[in-house]
């Protein structure tokens, strides 16, 4: 049985008449729209925003002011509303923010594989490299949005309940309100970079499985393990390499002058984690058999 004769037909021109591929933001926009439209993500943002609101209201309505043993930012809340956002960021960095990033990152590839849409995206075609780039871009945007929502809610609630004005830095000096706001913004950007690095880890886990929950849990376990190891002095040699090690150093942005050492180290670490885990995701996903 050799190949049969080609059927003679007109209008068959092979692939020559395909229009040229364009670089366009359509797929990324569609991805963001999908993320924003998910009830789960909307509910998550509400929870993230509830924390600074709760902090502001509870400090305002409690007769006793935060004592001397309260964390740095809490003591300053009554002096300047901007500190509500910094206090909220500190609190949420322990679980809520990493969890938010883990949910989005864990779902990125595994979620599409789970419901089978991955095979249809790949045959559109979306090349595997492009898919990873768009998914990671979505995760990065997600990390920024999550952090930004916490900070913005904190700033608004803080200003409403405690007022603004000049800000006292952690070093005790005074800076203008605008400068203070910029420092908060810098903290948001810094933390978003750290969380985006965790997102790269989550993206890698997401390429390993068709179960998004599994990838999400693994990502949270990863960041939590990092916190735990960071608190064990016996493995201090490991501390500089832990993904969470420099996260809380965002407070250094509120010193005067800014203590850049740890900030730069934190950004470098985030970059390193992102590079390593994106490469791992690529090496895994580029040759993976998609059988979902």
């Amino acid at each position, binding site marked *: *049985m*050799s*190949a*049969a*004769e*080609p*059927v*003679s*037909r*007109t*209008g*068959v*021109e*092979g*692939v020559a008449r*395909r*229009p*040229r*591929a*364009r*670089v*366009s933001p*359509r*797929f990324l*926009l*569609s991805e963001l729209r*999908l993320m924003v*439209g*998910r*009830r789960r993500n909307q509910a998550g943002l509400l929870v993230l925003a509830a924390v600074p609101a709760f902090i502001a209201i509870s400090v305002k309505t409690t007769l006793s002011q935060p004592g001397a043993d309260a964390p740095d930012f809490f003591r300053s809340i009554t002096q300047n509303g901007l500190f509500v956002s910094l206090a909220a960021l500190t609190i949420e960095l322990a679980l809520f923010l990493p969890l938010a990033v883990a949910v989005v990152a864990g779902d990125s590839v595994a979620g599409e594989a789970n*419901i*089978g*849409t991955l*095979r*249809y*995206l*790949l*045959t*559109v*075609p*979306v*090349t595997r490299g492009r898919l990873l780039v768009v998914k990671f871009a979505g995760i990065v945007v997600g990390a920024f949005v999550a952090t930004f929502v916490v900070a913005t809610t904190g700033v608004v609630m803080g200003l409403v309940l405690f007022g603004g004005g000049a800000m006292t830095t952690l070093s005790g000096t005074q800076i203008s309100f605008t400068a203070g706001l910029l420092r908060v913004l810098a903290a948001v950007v810094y933390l978003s970079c750290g969380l985006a690095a965790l997102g790269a880890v989550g993206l890698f886990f997401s390429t390993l499985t068709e179960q998004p929950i599994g990838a999400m849990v693994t990502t949270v376990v990863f960041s939590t393990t990092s916190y735990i190891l960071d608190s064990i002095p016996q493995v201090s040699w490991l501390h500089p390499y832990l993904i969470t090690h420099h996260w809380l150093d965002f407070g250094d942005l509120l010193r005067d002058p800014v203590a850049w050492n740890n900030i730069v180290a934190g950004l470098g670490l985030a970059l390193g984690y992102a590079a390593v885990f994106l490469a791992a995701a690529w090496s895994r996903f580029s*040759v993976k*058999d*998609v*059988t979902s």
Partner: protein
Amino acid sequence: MTDLAVRSRGLTKRFGSQTVVDAIDLAVPTGAVYGFLGPNGSGKTTTIRMLLGLVVPSGGGVELFGAAMPAGAASVLPAVGSLVEGPAFHPYLSGRRNLLRLDAADRTADPRSAGTRVAAALDRVGLLAAADKRYRAYSLGMRQRLAIAAALLTPKDLLVLDEPTNGLDPQGTREVRQLVGSLADDGTTVLVSSHLLSEVDQMCTHVGIMHVGRLVAQGSSAELRDQGTVEATVETEEPAQAARVMAELGLTEIHTTRTAATGVIGGIAAEKVVAACVHAGVPVVGFRVARPTLEDVFVSLTGEGFDVSG
């Protein structure tokens, strides 16, 4: 080279120690409607996944329009529409939104015409009325239609449809068959896999038959049928007499019933059988020539019923 829309050589896939697809040489001529037949589990879907670059072959290779896969995926797949192993969409998005998402992912699609192309594709599969319902509210048949619509968002040179009529009612099955026919008339090559012989029998110009990971037969439908045995039956009151005439003519494997004689006709012209019988005085009441169905061909090739899984 490019007179073949799909060509594979020694295409093989092993999962662990199991060989799922075993050195198959597919040849789908451009413009053909190629029926890719085989029982469930015979390796059809894995083969299709390799054609589309979803699964990397363990051995051999496959080309679409002369471009090797999966390396050529980015250049050749925009011209290929596919339906692989059932529909899959985001459950909480409407049918329309799902199609817009796929269109957004296609760099060769014109964003300005996205809305009209999506509506046209939905209309073509009869889903326009349900376009804005959430996908999760769709019935299985509607989901299958949406998946077909997704394959038709832009003009395609090749459609790869894996079990396209799964879950469709008889009306929907007929519509899909008509759709495939009209697409083929426009010059689109269609590769349609099925475990239903009758479906392929009705719409395909070419057929490939898979069995336990091997391509056991391939060719035009007519070629395949000619491999089977054509039988001539003479209905008569005198079957013994008819059998004698048929034997003289050279028919083989002749057997008789009370009212008919049947023999394998081989290379003998059918009309000669009637003429010879009449000439010999056999009272011929009826005459028919039974060409083998694809099922007969399949059974003769594999020695098994079609529903047996490989």
